[in-house]
């Protein structure tokens, strides 16, 4: 057990009727439902999902502000279910920072050490060190109300890391900052985390932020963890339709398994179209309904020239949107089915390769198609 910084085992939280799982489960849907996850020490672990998916509740369960209705929460191998927040080896950076308005920046940062009776000299040294780390030393004597949002964010960070927690919990800490500052802080946070070697559990609804910063991401929806994996795998190999849709953009095609042989699967699409590709580990049977997902940038467009290849579909360009770095084509395959294709504008805008109404061919590498769990 000791090799994990944080472990959640079948953790369920139902609001309303606390500690009475059997009755409560029937009354209200669980805010967090049988969540299993393990975070290794030094990892940057992100809980990603839309608002109301249970990611913040999960964080609050780890912090101790909420009591789990069922399941076990382990921090550094110790069961923490009944340990109050102030005795847990974790610290939180709150979404709205929650800085103490009556204390100076230095006093805010020293708060955790003060309540743990760390002597004044060491307290001052460590608080100064933490402020140094977030580059706010010269503002130590200010009150929080005299700081900008970005500065307050750094104080909140310093106030948490000064206690050297085993795990730092961050609840959408960059949510209130403007885009440019947010981008800068993302890199800074990541850098800080690497420098400290501290375990971060980070909550966000911003998929780009999650991809940039995380070692691993847990995608959540409706209280459940759908997939836990590295950013690359979450993006390239989404396990469910929700994951494929929530992170980046995806095309979906409904079909049915037509044939399985020699590690290849043939899926039949409407209009007698057949696609064949590697099934990547899914147990399939003939006739099973499946969803295929493919990213718009993995698709290529070509003019129809008669030579049909197996991994291609034909269609008609219905819409073209110029997005600067790339162009987004909507291609109608057959009535009610369209694919979005993104192509980089490597040749500049002077060469519009395709026009609305063009009959074209869509091509892809077979391994870029993802077969999704139903």
């Amino acid at each position: 057990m000791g090799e994990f910084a944080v472990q959640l085992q079948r953790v369920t939280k139902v609001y309303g009727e606390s500690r009475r799982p059997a009755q409560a489960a029937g009354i209200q849907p669980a805010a967090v439902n049988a969540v299993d996850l393990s975070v290794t020490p030094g990892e940057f672990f992100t809980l990603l999902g839309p608002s109301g998916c249970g990611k913040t509740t999960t964080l609050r369960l780890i912090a101790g502000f909420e009591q789990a209705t069922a399941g076990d929460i382990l921090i550094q191998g110790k069961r923490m279910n009944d340990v109050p927040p102030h005795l847990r080896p974790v610290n939180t950076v709150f979404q709205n920072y929650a800085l103490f308005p009556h204390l100076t920046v230095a006093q805010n940062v020293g708060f955790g050490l003060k309540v743990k009776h760390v002597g004044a000299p060491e307290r001052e040294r460590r608080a100064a060190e933490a402020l140094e780390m977030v580059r706010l030393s010269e503002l130590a004597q200010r009150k929080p109300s005299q700081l900008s949002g970005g500065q307050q964010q750094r104080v909140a960070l310093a106030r948490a890391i000064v206690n050297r927690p085993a795990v730092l919990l961050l609840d959408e800490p960059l949510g209130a900052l403007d885009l440019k500052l947010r981008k800068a802080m993302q890199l800074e946070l990541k850098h800080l985390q690497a420098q400290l070697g501290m375990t971060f559990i980070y909550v966000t609804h911003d998929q780009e932020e999650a991809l940039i910063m995380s070692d691993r991401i847990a995608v959540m929806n409706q209280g459940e963890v759908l997939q836990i994996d590295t950013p690359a795998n979450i993006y390239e190999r989404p396990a469910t339709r929700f994951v494929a849709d929530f992170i980046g953009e995806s095309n979906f095609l409904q079909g049915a398994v037509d044939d399985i042989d020699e590690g290849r699967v043939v899926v039949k699409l409407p209009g007698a179209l057949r696609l064949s590709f590697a099934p990547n580990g899914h147990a399939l049977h003939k006739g099973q309904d499946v969803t295929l997902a493919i990213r718009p940038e993995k698709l290529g467009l070509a003019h129809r020239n008669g030579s049909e290849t197996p991994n291609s579909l034909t269609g008609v360009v219905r819409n073209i949107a110029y997005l600067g770095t790339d162009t987004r084509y909507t291609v109608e395959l057959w009535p009610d089915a369209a694919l979005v294709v993104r192509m980089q504008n490597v040749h500049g805008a002077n060469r519009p390769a395709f026009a609305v109404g063009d009959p074209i061919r869509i091509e892809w590498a077979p391994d870029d198609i993802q077969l999704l769990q139903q």
Partner: protein
Amino acid sequence: MTARAWRSLNLFYVTVAAVFLYVPLFLLIVFSFNDGGTLAFPLSGFTLKWYRELWDTPELLRAAWNSVLLGAISSVVATVIGAMAAVGLMRFRFAGRNLLIMAAMLPLVVPSVVLGVTMLMGFAQINLPLSLWTVGMGHVVINLPVVILIVMARLSGLDANLEEAAMDLGATYLGAQWRVTLPLTLPALFAAFLTSFTTSFDEFALTFFLVGSEPTLPTYLYSQLRFPTRLPIVVAMASVVIVGSFLTVVFTEWLRRRGETQKANRVDSLAGDFAVDERRPGPAMRPNTPALERGSTPRGGK
């Protein structure tokens, strides 16, 4: 209308309001120095004899002192109980919470006469003899809703995350209350105390039912109205109260401003008195404002 016309209209309003408010008070003070038995013009001469008689009327002084003591103690009790109730009502969600809020607000709408009769019957039931203590209990009851409202208003303006942040950083629940909620609520507690004290000091209807042999200032003054010759002494007493209240208000305002100047100079403000001070070792709680606050500044603690 021009800005100038608006200004003179405003000035007119302010003048009228000031006249209505302060002329009677001013007259009262003037008559307290009047060498004559009746409260009527023309003034017959300047005298301090009413004040001398006031000083020589121990029952009156005793009644005044009773009222001060009663106001102070009952207001402290009301503030403490009311503040705790407000914290409970604001921070926790439980069955019957709304009912409890309504019940706590009841003394606001029940006439004090009714409350007085009810409490009188109640005390009689448990054979509790009437005294200043029973009056004090009555005053706590009527002041509770006001305290709860004032403190709840302040708490609702405070981010609930602040307490969580304090606990997250290692403070116990009580520690978080002490180090974060209390300092941030202090101005409201002070306001609640002052409001309670004022109410208690001039409360008559309820007091009249619950008072024993020891009178409060209002019940004593009322009893003196039967003797016309005593009226000038009552007027003198009223003048003392007016001047006293005026000085208190001025002093409080002066303290508040001083606190704000200090804040601007980056010295801890009123709330900062309870602050964790990084620069100075020694006692964690460091009262740095003299006089009024010192009496109410808790010391020590961890």
